[in-house]
């Protein structure tokens, strides 16, 4: 390409990023919310007890088994998520069964520690559905969504690399932010959030691709294991435990306390993330403990016990070579090992990534409009369409997410398909925000969206107080920080959008004032600095 490497990389950066920018914005924002999925879950199920009772893992497991023996005695497999740290406040159980027409079905319940019975909560997708959006894309078949997200992620990787190559003064401009200079300010923010959090962006993008690497890079596996050898590879690579078929002779489960103590001996306190019970009640029962994530590489540790005798059959923790890399990448992406401080860092850095994508999109239109402004031309249709998509996504998607939370509180509790309609609310609100710029001039649309977003988030705690008894007046004194945190973050988000609206308004007033200056003064376009007095 003409003009040297830097120019060609700038071209690549633009055209790799722009076409998938909106999808990536969606993926980054919903994925980022996933770092607080459990907190969001709790907020969206206000019927669960407050604060969650302090339940030890072993008590939780006992509670789970009692319930499972009651409701799922015949199921071939039980899964228990015992309480652990801040992530899992309640015991959750799930089991496989069949529905009325004989199709396999998974059921799950979250248990009330005081009664041992499941909570009767509203039907909701909670934080789980919200964060899963970033790879399910909800309305698409899962294979299509996987490939689409994969292609977008690959382009993200390319955009990151080409962005770094094209950034001429990456070190000299490391701390640079020049406000109130239109296009240049957008570029500064884009660079600042892109470069300071570059390790995060690179690792999250690369590891995101690794989740479905066996789909995207299937030929590499097939070349070694044959076209139907995928399962063999997984068994070898991940050392999936050998589960024998049930023999049909009943045998009670070995006392769980001794199994749990074994896990504590090897793995330390609160060692179990998932406990799976295969063939429960059979002489060939197997109990598999999966280890809590304690650091980026520890995930995937596993213990297999004979369920009838309690004998430890297999334990394995440290993987070697490439498996460590694989697990480290997945562990870094999910961030499940992260305690409260680190979780916040993950969340905030994720927002920086989202901001990087958002500012990149805005920058594209700002650049093109700035070029046209001196000539006084109207931007071509393509630029207008992209600007509309930008307004409708950069602010519209957060509004859609707010709508998801509003729907959780406002939809009737007994409504059919309630959980599904929460998600519909998200996409319908987003769709409405995408339509808005077509009805209003873009500048007005930015304003309206920002104000609406400010109101939608700032009013969430109020809505919560009106519709539940778990509002800030209760949650803060009770020290229920997961719930209080949700309300406080909503308030802060609303405030943030409000500030953005005010800043935008001031800039426009300044621009309008500058445009009214006598002839001979240059009209303020995006690229020229605003006079200090006019901007204040």
């Amino acid at each position, binding site marked *: *390409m*003409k003009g040297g*490497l830097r120019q*060609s*990389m700038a*071209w*690549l950066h633009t055209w*790799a990023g722009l076409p998938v920018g909106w999808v990536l914005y969606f993926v980054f924002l919903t994925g980022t919310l996933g770092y607080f999925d459990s907190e969001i879950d709790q907020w969206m199920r206000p019927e669960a007890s407050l604060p969650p009772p302090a339940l030890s893992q072993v008590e939780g497991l006992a509670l789970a088994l009692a319930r499972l023996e009651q409701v799922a005695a015949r199921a071939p497999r039980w899964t228990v998520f015992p309480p652990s740290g801040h992530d899992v406040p309640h015991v959750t159980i799930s089991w496989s069964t069949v529905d009325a027409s004989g199709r396999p079905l998974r059921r799950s319940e979250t248990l009330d520690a005081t009664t041992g019975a499941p909570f009767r909560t509203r039907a909701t997708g909670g934080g789980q559905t919200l964060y899963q959006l970033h790879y399910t894309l909800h309305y698409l078949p899962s294979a299509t969504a996987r490939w689409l997200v994969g292609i977008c992620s*690959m382009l993200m*990787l*390319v955009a990151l*690399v*080409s962005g770094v*190559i094209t950034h001429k003064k990456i070190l000299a401009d490391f701390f640079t932010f020049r406000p109130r200079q239109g296009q240049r300010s957008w570029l500064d923010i884009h660079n600042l959030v892109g470069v300071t959090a570059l390790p995060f962006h690179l690792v999250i993008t*690369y590891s995101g*691709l*690794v989740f479905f*690497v*066996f789909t995207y*890079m299937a*030929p*590499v*596996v097939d*070349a*070694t*294991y044959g076209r139907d050898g995928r399962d063999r*590879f997984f068994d*070898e*690579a991940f050392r999936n435990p050998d589960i024998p078929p049930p023999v049909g002779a009943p045998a009670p489960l070995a006392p769980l306390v001794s199994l749990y103590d074994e896990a504590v001996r090897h793995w330390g306190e609160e060692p179990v993330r998932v406990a799976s019970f295969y063939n429960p009640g059979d002489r060939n029962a197997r109990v598999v403990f999966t280890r809590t994530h304690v650091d980026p590489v520890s995930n995937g540790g596993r213990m297999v016990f004979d369920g009838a005798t309690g004998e430890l059959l297999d334990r394995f923790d440290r993987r*070697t*070579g*490439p*498996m460590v*890399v*694989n697990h480290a*990448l997945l562990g870094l992406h999910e961030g499940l090992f992260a305690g409260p401080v680190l979780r916040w860092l993950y969340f905030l850095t994720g927002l920086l990534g989202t901001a990087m994508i958002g500012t990149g999109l805005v920058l594209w239109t700002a650049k093109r409009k700035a070029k046209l402004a001196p000539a006084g031309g109207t931007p071509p249709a393509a630029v207008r369409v992209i600007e509309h998509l930008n307004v409708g996504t950069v602010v519209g998607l957060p509004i859609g997410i707010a709508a998801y939370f509003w729907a959780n509180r406002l939809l009737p509790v007994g409504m059919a398909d309630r959980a599904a309609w929460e998600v519909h609310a998200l996409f319908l609100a987003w769709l409405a925000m995408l339509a808005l710029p077509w009805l209003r001039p873009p500048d007005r649309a930015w304003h309206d969206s920002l104000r609406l977003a400010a109101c939608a988030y700032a009013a969430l705690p109020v809505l919560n107080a009106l519709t539940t008894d778990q509002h800030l007046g209760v949650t803060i004194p009770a020290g229920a920080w997961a719930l209080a945190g949700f309300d406080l973050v909503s308030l802060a988000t609303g405030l943030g959008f409000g500030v953005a609206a005010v800043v935008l308004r001031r800039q426009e007033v300044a621009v309008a004032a500058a445009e009214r200056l006598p002839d001979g003064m240059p009209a303020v376009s995006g690229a020229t600095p605003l006079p200090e007095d006019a901007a204040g």
Partner: protein
Amino acid sequence: MTRWHVASRVLAAVAGGYAVSTVAGVGLVQALPLPRADAVMAGVLSTYLVYGAAVVWCFGARTARHAWLGLLITGAFFAALGVLGGSVRS
């Protein structure tokens, strides 16, 4: 710089890049002195590095012809690596 040259580079980057990264993955699996499953894991994990580099190369190269040539050479290198590695192994 015509539209066709850009199209050629895009094709090289998308399809050529995928092909080369797949060949690189398979080549590494054959060449790495690791148990089979570990080698496959290392192979697939490296593919994105190759793919990313290939895309950047395709747009950074001086001409579209260079872009394709670079891919061919890289692909040939990894293929040779795989064949050599495979023969050492067996």
